[in-house]
């Protein structure tokens, strides 16, 4: 902020090439149904946590696919794993297992210790 009174704003652009998608690959290998997600939002509509915050599993799935790991790590904590999303998903995606795998992936990769 020094003498100019402002800082250069960060872009909100997702840079697909430079993002690290190891977390996404880890999940895709272990939960093939993750590919079926058509991001319809059924899961985030019924979400228990979604009742209290702006947590959206649909958005979380997208951020995982895009490799936005910082944001995913933050949002991941809010899920209560209650499993309602599993029951609602029109494509039969095992959404609950995706969250569990993501938590495990973060635990294993030391830099992103959750």
């Amino acid at each position, binding site marked *: 902020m020094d003498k*100019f*009174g*402002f*800082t*250069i*704003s*960060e*872009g909100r652009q997702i840079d697909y090439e430079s993002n690290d998608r190891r977390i996404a690959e880890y999940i895709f290998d272990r939960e093939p149904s993750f590919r079926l997600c058509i991001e319809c939002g059924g899961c985030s509509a019924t979400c228990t946590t979604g009742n209290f915050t702006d947590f959206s599993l649909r958005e979380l799935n997208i951020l995982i696919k895009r490799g936005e790991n910082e944001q995913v790590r933050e949002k991941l904590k809010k899920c209560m794993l209650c499993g309602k999303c599993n029951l609602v998903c029109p494509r039969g995606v095992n959404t609950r297992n995706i969250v569990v795998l993501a938590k495990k992936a973060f635990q294993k990769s030391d830099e992103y210790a959750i």
Partner: protein
Amino acid sequence: MILAGKKAVWKDYQKEIAEDKYYYVRSCVRQNFFPGSETAFLKIMREELDKDVYENPCHTSCTGICYHSDIVPVETTMTVVARQFALMTEAGYENLMPSCITSFGLYTEILDTWHHFPEIEEKVRRQLKKATGREFKKPKNLAHASDVIFKFRKEIGAKAKYKLINKETGKPLKVVDHIGCHYAKMFPSKGVGGAEYPYVLTGMIEEWGGQIIDYPERRHCCGFGFRQYLVQANRGFSVACSKEKFESMRPFKPDMIITNCPGCPMFLDRWQYVINEMEGKRYGQNGEGIPVFTYEEVAGLVLGYDPWELGLQMHQTDCEPVLNKIGIDYSPEDKYNLDISPSYSKKHNLINV
């Protein structure tokens, strides 16, 4: 890059530009930041191309910046613009030639709004009559000053003393063209070459020997955004836009940037200084910045005018690298010399006096 494809696009966007008898309206920003450019423009139009260019002293600002900052309602702006048309009609001119892109965009938008909603035009007529008692006629032809220079680029090229070619390597200078957003983005058909691949500056550069670079962020805004810059708190957004452009053009190693809007050259120039101060990054080769020019300055340089008369010393990013590449003979020590006595001006065949 398939050039034939671009040429086909340019062919679709032919624009009718007046031949002569221009009613020239100045730009507030350009007068404050690049006075030399406007002077050079008038000199080129009147002396090099001997066109009739009339300028009315009672002309005021078109309130463009206030309108886009939303502190002036649209009817007020329309009535002020109507007054300007009235001044033009009284002066007996029909070819409006604004020097500012925002004004050009505003005139196009107002004429288009009146075209679709004639009742608003009637209301503005009544308001103008009530406020100033004046009557106005809509301009027959509306062309931006850069359109006119584009139209006569061949004539200027013919009189050119220098070419935009690197003296040592003989290769054309790599030039990045930046078009003001309000030039064609709002009404693509009103800009030479349309909104995607505007040809107005490319035409000039190709005519004067340079080579145009097409980089991914060429259509990105320079970041002026009116209230994004005018209020200090928002300038972070403004500088971020220019930075996006510089990051994108860097791999292409451009030698210079040419612009056709009053705000863009100031911002592309100042933001390079700010980014260097904040992040120590330089975008030009071997540690220098990329010099930024208005089209009038480039035309002046090509015609051999004295760089310090064109006002290049008012730029924050030094322009000397380009001058040396082209091989223009100038006196570096007179950069900040403000002497305008006859003897001095004769020695440097100055034009402004």
